[in-house]
């Protein structure tokens, strides 16, 4: 049961289309697990639509309908009735990984460039062309303590697979967890199972322990520009 959700700021900016891509991917991944937030986003889109239909209409002097139809007819691939209705998609694909993440990874997480950091962690940066943030997938083996680290920037973690727990509670698949600058993770956190997370990072994490050594290659990798 998902119990950590994006707040009204994330959902509103997402529905309005102003959320930067890295954060938008995190919200979209959460939405595939969470019907409640999906409903909120739909309602927020209703708000936007109601505002749009109340705008003063801007009428174009020359009616462009005929030229638009010409454009459509010269390229329309679908004759009447043949546009298939898209059936309700299962929220999550067969692998259990949200579609949005798999699509951006080029079909499968295996297509990403994984960097192995020690025995229990590997990280794959995701290039989504977002300048303000780093986006990556973390794959962490079960039974390891979560690395203790401190944040210089906001970090969003969406749990895609597995679970972990810390003093604040237990995090499960779908949970959307935000850590703010200056916050320190609970050092007691442990991974209950193998864990795959989508992470969006505002700034490099300042490590306070062995995490730093683990992170160093990632930081280097990031500096080299995420080349694929």
């Amino acid at each position, binding site marked *: 049961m998902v119990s950590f959700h994006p707040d009204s700021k994330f959902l509103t900016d997402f529905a309005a289309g*102003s959320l930067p891509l890295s954060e938008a991917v995190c919200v979209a991944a959460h939405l595939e697990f969470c019907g409640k937030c999906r409903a909120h986003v739909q309602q927020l889109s*209703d708000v936007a*639509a109601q505002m749009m239909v109340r705008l003063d209409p801007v009428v174009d002097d020359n009616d462009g309908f005929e030229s638009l139809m010409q454009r*459509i007819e010269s390229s329309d691939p679908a004759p009447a*009735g043949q546009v298939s209705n898209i059936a309700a998609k299962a929220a999550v694909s067969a692998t259990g990984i949200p579609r949005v993440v798999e699509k951006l990874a080029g079909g499968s997480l295996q297509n990403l460039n994984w960097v192995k950091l020690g025995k229990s962690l590997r990280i794959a940066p995701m290039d989504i062309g977002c300048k303000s943030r780093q986006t990556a997938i973390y794959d962490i083996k079960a039974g390891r303590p979560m690395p203790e680290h401190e944040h210089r920037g906001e970090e969003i973690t969406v749990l895609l697979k597995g679970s972990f727990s810390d003093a604040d509670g237990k995090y499960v698949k779908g949970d959307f967890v935000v850590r703010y600058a200056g916050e320190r993770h609970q050092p007691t956190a442990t991974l209950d199972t193998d864990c795959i997370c989508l992470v969006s990072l505002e700034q490099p994490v300042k490590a306070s322990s062995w995490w730093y050594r683990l992170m160093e290659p990632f930081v280097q990798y990031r500096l080299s520009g995420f080349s694929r």
Partner: protein
Amino acid sequence: MDNDIDMESAVTQLNRSTVPDAWAESVRLVAVKRDRAAFQVLYKHFSPLIRAFLLKSMGSGANRSEAEEITQEVLIKVWNKAATFNPAKASVNTWIFTIARNTRIDFIRRNDRNNREIDIEDIWHDAESPEPLVDMQQRRAEQVIKQAMATLPEEQVQVLYKAFMEGKSHNEVAEELSLPLGTVKSRIRLALNKMQILIDR
């Protein structure tokens, strides 16, 4: 909880409180018959609204002719995607807004000269909900939103307008109005609460 009874009362309530969507039939005709006349009806009503929205939201970098081009792109998508419109889930107003929003996001990305090709619809996709009851609640909520919007105080309308029509993030709205981020967030939340959009945090 008995689902059948629950469903029945939801249907009754829906019928009582939902004004039929006047545009849904036009979209259906476009989808099924590729009906030009029906499409022209949609065109006449929506293109001046889409154009108005894009002129406000595409940012200072966009000129009138770019807004015009994106307006055309939106209408072409309305034609091409008509069969994917689900009247149980959303009104035509909302459906067209989401197409306009996504086309706008795409335009801004293209303008940024992003080398990574991304299909915006992969991220801002139409989340499918296979639960009819949820769809009905959704449509009922839309009526509440419509009515409550008319009663919102000016300062709440202002932040909503900047967020949704000008496409500004919370941070950008805060900066522009010289307000703390928390104030922007709470004004938007107050407005959403009045419209019965109850987000936990």
